[in-house]
Structures are given as C-alpha cells and as structure tokens.
C-alpha cells in the first residue's frame, strides 16, 4: 500500500484560496464608498427595489399559506361551491393588466427622452388599463357564489385577490399623482424618480398577478 499525504492545497475545495479570495470577490461586486451623495435617482431606485423585496415576502407568506392549506385540506370546495372560475372577465382582466406593462415602459422611456406629450398619453392609457382591472375585479367578486367567510376557499381567494387589488389601486393612485406632477412647470427632474419607481412597482404588481392567476384559476380542485 502506497501512502500519500494530501496537502490542504490539493484538496479540491481549496479552503485556503476561498478564505483569501472571498473578501476580494465581495469587494469587487459591492460598490466602494464615495461620491453617491447627490445621486437621488440611484438612491431612490435602490431603496425602492429593496422595499419591493420585502413586499414580495408578504405576498410569499400569503401564497405559502394558500398552498399549504390547499395541499392539506381534503374538501377544499364546500358543497355547492364551484370555486373561482376562469371566466371571460378574468381572462380579459389578465390580458389588460399584463399588457399594461408594455405601455408603461415606453411611457417612462418617453419621459427620459423628454417627449412629454407622448409620456402623458401612454401614461393615461396605463391608468385606464389599471382602472379597468379594478372595475373588472369588483364585477368578478359580485358574480361569485361564495364570500370571504365561505370556508378556506373564500378566505384565501378574497385575501389574495384583495391584497393584490389593493396594490393595483396604489399603483393607479401613484400614476395619477405622477401625471398631475408632469403638468407642474419645471418639475420634470423631480418626476423622474417617481415615474421610474411607479413603473417598477407596476411591473412588480404584474409579475405577482402571473403567480396568483396560475395558483387561483389554473390549479383546478
């Protein structure tokens, strides 16, 4: 039997290199100090992105509750209740909401290029699409044969769609504020952060809806 001493350098994981290099790698990926005090747009967008991170955790906690309850509940639908239907209203609502992302982004780009008129028109269309979604949600709620107190299906459905609808409402209110601000003379630069944040928020609301739509309507009981 031939014996060979394995030196720590020869181990495939190379702990010594990790220990020495990890701090340097981190240093390279993370920004170094200095000079960002006046970058209001950059600071604002960083803060807003971080805020959306924590927003997504609230949604995740609700989705976790929904999935966990759904997987462990034997009689998910109480007798006589058919659950959320993939109706025409829902499909049109989803199409309108998701396509509004492709309207708001050109609007923001137009503002960056100082095309104020184009920005206002596209922005107004986005507001209309968001409002349409909210009205559609209310119509859908009215047409359903169960309430928030009707078993777990009612509790989770109204919680998820209601919380998401609240976010759509907040997005529409932000959009209206930004539209009004765009008419205040000399306010273009100030609106820039607001519009970028609103656009990001709107994309976020859309992405959340993709998950909620799949979980609520496509996952049949």
């Amino acid at each position: 039997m031939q014996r060979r001493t394995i030196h720590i350098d020869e181990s495939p994981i190379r702990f010594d290199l990790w220990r020495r290099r990890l701090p340097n790698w981190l240093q390279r990926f993370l920004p170094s100090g200095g000079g960002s005090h006046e970058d209001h747009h950059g600071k604002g967008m960083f803060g807003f992105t971080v805020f959306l991170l924590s927003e997504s955790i609230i949604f995740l906690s609700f989705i976790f509750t929904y999935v966990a309850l759904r997987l462990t509940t034997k009689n998910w639908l109480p007798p006589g209740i058919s659950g959320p239907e993939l109706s025409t209203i829902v499909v049109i609502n989803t199409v309108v909401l998701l396509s509004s992302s492709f309207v708001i982004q050109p609007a923001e780009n137009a503002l960056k290029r100082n095309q104020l008129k184009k920005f206002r028109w596209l922005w107004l269309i986005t507001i209309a699409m968001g409002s349409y979604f909210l009205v559609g949600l209310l119509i859908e709620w009215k047409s359903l044969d169960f309430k928030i107190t009707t078993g777990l299906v009612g509790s989770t459905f109204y919680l998820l769609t209601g919380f998401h609808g609240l976010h759509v409402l907040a997005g529409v209110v932000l959009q209206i504020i930004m539209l009004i601000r765009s008419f205040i003379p000399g306010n273009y630069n100030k609106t820039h952060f607001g519009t970028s944040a609103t656009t990001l928020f709107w994309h976020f609301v859309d992405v959340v809806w993709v998950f909620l739509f799949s979980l609520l309507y496509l996952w049949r009981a």
Partner: protein
Amino acid sequence: MTHDFSQEITGDRESENSQNQEGNNWQQYFTFNTDHKVIGIQYMVMTFMFFLIGGLLAMLIRAELLTPESNLVDRPLYNGLFTMHGTIMIFLWIIPFNAGLSNYLVPLMIGARDMAFPLLNAISFWILPPAGLLLLSSFFVPNGTAQSGWWSYPPISLQIPGGGLINGEFIWIVSLVLIGISSIMGAVNFMTTIFWMRAPGMTFFRMPVFVWSVLSAQLLQLINLPALTGALILLLFDLSFGTQFFKPDGNGDPIIYQHLFWFYSHPAVYIMALPAFGIFAEVLPAFSRNPLFGYRSVALATLGIAFISIFVWAHHMFTSATPGWMRMTFMATSMLVAIPTGIKAFAWTATIWRSKLHLETPMLFAMGGAAMFIFGGVTGVMLAATPFDIHVNNTYFVVGHFHYIVFNTITMAIFAAIYYWFPKITGRMYAEGWGKLHFWLTFIPANITFFSMHPLGLQGMLRRVSSYDPQYQGWNIIASLASFLLGASTLPFIANIVGSWLYGPRAVDNPWHATGLEWTTSSPPPRDNFEEIPIVKRPPYDYGNPKYSIIENSNNNE
C-alpha cells in the same frame, strides 16, 4: 500600552461647543425633525421610557411569583402582564433602541451627512409613539389586554372573552403591524444609506463591525419582518372578519401561523443581538488598545449569522407536531449558528488577550455582556438539541436562557453603548463612579435573577403560570428579590444620565482615543456631521499604530 485616559477625558471646549449648540434646544426633540442625530435621540429616549414600563410589568410578575398561590393579580391580568412585558421589551425597547442607536451612529461611522431618506426616517420614528400608546391603551379596554403571550398563537389568541370588535388582541395586532411598517421603512433607509452614502475610501472592509451588524440586522428586517406582518394580517382577518386561516374547527391550520411567526421572530433574536455584538466589537478594542482580532472573519461571521438564522425558525416548534425530518434539519441548522457566533466570541477574547484593560464603565458593561453571552449561547446550543428541548419546552429554563441573551447580553451592550457614546452624543462626560455603581447593581442581581430560572426549569416549573407547586418557591423568592434590586439599579443610571447631560463636565471630541470616524468630528457633532467629508485611508481598528489617525482630510494630502 499604558495610557491614562483620565487626564484627557475632560477638557475646556466651552467656546467651541457654544457654536455647535446653537439651535440645539430641547424643543427640537419633540418636533418632526429630519436630522438623523435628533431622530436617534428621540428613538433612544422614547424606547427607554418603554423599557421602564416593561420593567415595571416584570416587577409585578415577579411579585406575583413570590408566593405559590395566585394572590396579587387575577389571572387575566397576569396573562396580560407577561404578554405586554414581552411585547414591549422586544418591539418597543430593544429593536427600536437599536434602530435609534444605529440612526445616530451609522451616518457618522461611514462619513455621511445624513441618512439616505431623512424625511422617511422621521416618519419611521413618528409612527412609533402612537403605536406604543395604542398598545398601552389596551389595558383600558373591556376585558383587558391581549392575553396569549407575545407569540399570540392561534387558536388561543382567537378566544376573545366578551367577543367585542375592539379588544386587547385586536389592538395588539394593529400596533404591531404599525411598528412593523416603521421597521421596514427604517430597514430600507439603512440599506440605502450603507450602500450609497459611504465616504470616499470607506470600502466595505473598512466599515466598523457595528455598521456590518446594522447591515445584517436590517437585511433580516427586510427579508423576514414581512412574514410576521402577513401572519398578523391573517390573524386579524380570523379574529374580526370571519375567515378561517388558523381556525382548526374550520379546516384552518394554526401551525401555519407558527411557521410564519417564527420565520420572523427567530431572526428577530439576531436583529436584536447583532447590533449588540457590533457594540462589543467597538468597545472592546477601544478599551484594550488592541485592533479587533480577525476583523474580516468577524465581519463575514456577522453576515453568516444573519444568513443561517433565516433557516432555523422551526426549532421553536419541536413540540408542535413537527415531523422527524424537520426536527433533524432544524436541529442541525440551529447548531450551525454556533460556528459564526463562536468566531465572534473568540475574536472578542483574542482582542482583550494580554492587553492592558481600561475598566471604565462602557468596558465593564461590554465585558460583562460578552461573558454572559457565552453562558446564554451554551444554553442555546443545549436547547437546539431536540431531545433536550422537548424535555424543558415551555419551562423556566427557556425563560432563563433568553433572558441571558436579551437582558444580560443585549441590554448590557445597550448600556455599554450609552456610556461609550454619551460624550459624543451630549458633549458631556458621565460620572464614572455612578456608572460603576450602576454596572455592579445590574450585573450581580441580573445573574442571580436569571440563573435561578435554569434550575427552576430543569425541575419542571412552567412559564406563564401565576400559581405553582410550593416546591419551586425557594428559587422563585431568590429570583424575585434579585429582580427588585435589578429594577432599582435603573435609578442611579437615570440620575447619572440626566445629571451629566445637564451639568456634566464638557467632553473632548475623542475621550477614549478611539479610531472610528464618529470620533473625528466635534462632540456633539454639527448639523451636517463633518465640516468636510473625510477621505478614509485606514482600516477601522488601527489601535496598533497610535500615531495614525484613521482619516486624513484632503487638505492634509497636499
């Protein structure tokens, strides 16, 4: 190094200070002010008020436990007392105090003029006083405060006596959601400040460990706090709007609440503890004149603790019908936390190893707190072991363990921080003798109080009961009497702080000869913190090289 501070601690700065103090009147602390230093002091003073209230509730609990019978307060009130004690101490004392201290120090330590979003900062603070008062107001609603402990587990928390819409539990949930909103806004602010506002040359590995700790703790606030907010919203719906998420009789699952709750509330322990570790890492090097041992390892261990703590929450649920694979997994991850924490503890020890210690009050509190953390940490590893945890679950052993962490470690660290940065914050020196008296009056009774709980728990005394078997009375009397002494120890502290703030001798800019950036500006710092934004060229703990100061102003280069 043998350097005597006493000569240089005080100095005549009357003339310079009068200039800095213009506009520094007491009324500004009661207004909507956007200066991070004013907000920091507002936070710290307000949370100290809640500390006193929470402490008084604890005295009442201990007084009730002097005798085996329940004869001082009735049981609903006793339930309310321990619920409010826990809630206030966690959500209105330690977490917001750390937010206030970080608010004061982080911009100074990284060389910024203010926080990234000053207006948001003021809003985050001003949410707290109404939320705290709302919580206290629940003592006066019919049927009293929330009574289900600070966990508020359903279905117990859903059993409301009387059943009115406005009840203690409802108020408890609303005020906790408000406090959570304030914390999330604060976390956004801290993250942006630390990432974007650092002075030139202040790279990540030149940041003091305290800033690393704040970064890690606030990251946990961002990632984990929303889960608690989500759980509380669901609980509120169950309580008031007839939903059934957590109602076992309506197919709901109360265990889901426990998952969501502990997903935040376990990391919350580190949200409280990491800033305390950061305080140790500032105070211990300063008073032993040694650089912090293994600075990079300590900084990365801070992030490591934060990261691991996200994956350990179910160790609070070993007795909640948790399946075996989950117990094993979470036992392993919980014990893993001991590695980065151990790195920190060894770094503290190595920092003060063979150095000439200067035993001023901040150092006493920091050393006492760090030593007590070893004890609390060891019982923590014991509790992470599933079989042992099942044995002592819901007994006073657990209460003793976490009071070793939250009082003997974190609150000691907070006192160390108050004494250490007192000259910087107020521009005056505290009275050393009173400080030392406060330390010994805290350290000894605290240890007696919380040590007694360990044998009590091992013998089987349950927590959250107002009457108990007479065999437990001996240790309970010891714990109660020591806790009254512990409560009294706050009096010399208040006298010292208030008296010194008003009449103390003027402090110089850097009484401890510390190397952090915050000591390079005047005491108290001017409105914009620095006359000129410093350029950082040195590592943060350069005590080995006393001739260097940590910064050189751009003027000095030319």
